[in-house]
């Protein structure tokens, strides 16, 4: 079992695809704090977050074979699964546990992950850019990215026209992209 701890994410997924329990154990141990943390950020309840996080690892195990490294890195793949399950849990509950602006605040006030594809400066810049966003844009992005609301649903929640909701998301994301060195042409 010692050998699996140093394996790459992709190798662990390959092991999981062949139903290797040791690979799964190493994978769960490597990512459980990140997965549970994201679930907790979204659903706001430790018990619900645990259910979401458990299910995320079960899905990763069952779909390890279909992971395609060309479509993204393993952490992004796993966290997207987690996010989608957390959103499903929220939809069943029918309410947002945390004000979306406060959620965005939690992203900038804590130490970040080490599994990002960005270097430290870029991550720090991304946090600063999130902090600098106008509150209405930060809320719209949180509602979309973390709570899974469509533009139409955001317009209804925020009591604004659909076009305004879409503009807030687009402009907010545009500002965040700028700090990562990608600018609109």
């Amino acid at each position: 079992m010692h050998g699996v701890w140093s394996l790459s994410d992709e190798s662990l997924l390959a092991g999981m695809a062949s139903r290797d329990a040791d690979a799964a154990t190493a994978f769960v141990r490597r990512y459980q704090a990140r997965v549970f943390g994201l679930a907790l950020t979204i659903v706001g309840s430790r018990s619900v977050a645990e259910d979401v996080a458990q299910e995320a690892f079960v899905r990763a195990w069952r779909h390890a074979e279909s992971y395609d490294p060309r479509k993204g890195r393993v952490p992004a793949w796993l966290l997207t699964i987690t996010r989608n399950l957390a959103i499903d849990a929220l939809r069943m509950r029918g309410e947002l546990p945390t004000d979306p602006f406060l959620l965005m605040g939690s992203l900038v006030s804590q130490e970040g992950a080490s599994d990002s594809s960005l270097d430290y400066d870029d991550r720090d810049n991304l946090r600063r850019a999130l902090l600098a966003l106008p509150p209405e844009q930060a809320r719209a992005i949180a509602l979309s990215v973390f709570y899974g609301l469509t533009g139409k649903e955001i317009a209804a929640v925020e009591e604004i026209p659909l076009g305004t909701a879409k503009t807030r998301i687009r402009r907010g994301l545009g500002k965040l992209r700028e700090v990562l060195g990608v600018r609109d042409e």
Partner: protein
Amino acid sequence: MSEDAECAEIRELIPEIAAGVAAGDERARALAHLGDCHDCRHELAVTADLVDEMLTLAPAEEPPAGFESRVMARLAPEAKVRRAPGRVRALRRRPTRASTRAAAWLAATAAAAGLAAGAVWWQTAQDRELAASYRHTLDVAHGRGLSAAPLMSGLGAEQGTVFAYQGEPSWLYVTFRAAPQPGLYDACLVTKDGRRFALRPFEAGHNAYAWGSTIKVDVREIGTIEFARSGETVMSARF
């Protein structure tokens, strides 16, 4: 539409597509365009990367003690482990404390969803039994989810509730507030990406208050459930 105008329209949709929340028809339209447009593909890739990065900003948090063991207990029935010959087949997934709690949570949230939809049926004894049976089903069958959506008439009046159960098999169950007009209804499931699946038709008698059908798609893929008479959609539920 000119190429520039089409690109401008698709760029409007890209944030929602990158966040995975675009409506099925919009997503389908964008994907058709993205196949031929390198610039818009690049735009989507960059935006999707940004969304991925935002997810990694969520602070890490150690899960409750025993989390790893509970996850591994759920994976164990499917893992390759050394067991005495002939025993593997006999092993069946048993409800762990966590999965039992998950089932209870799912049942509770399903109940909350029903109440949020204003479902009056909850007040009747017959339907309390039905709700109890849902809890029981989730518990016994290790169901993975139960979702609900209000069933609306074309005029916007609530006709009942559609429940979608994710399990093996997955199924839909509809309770009507009042018996619909008698007759034959064609039922159809439309996925978020626009695929249509014909379901078991609903033959409504004078006292038909419920209908059900198994489904072959993941509950998360459900966009709408439609009931049509003579080719015209008369009731629908949007998930």
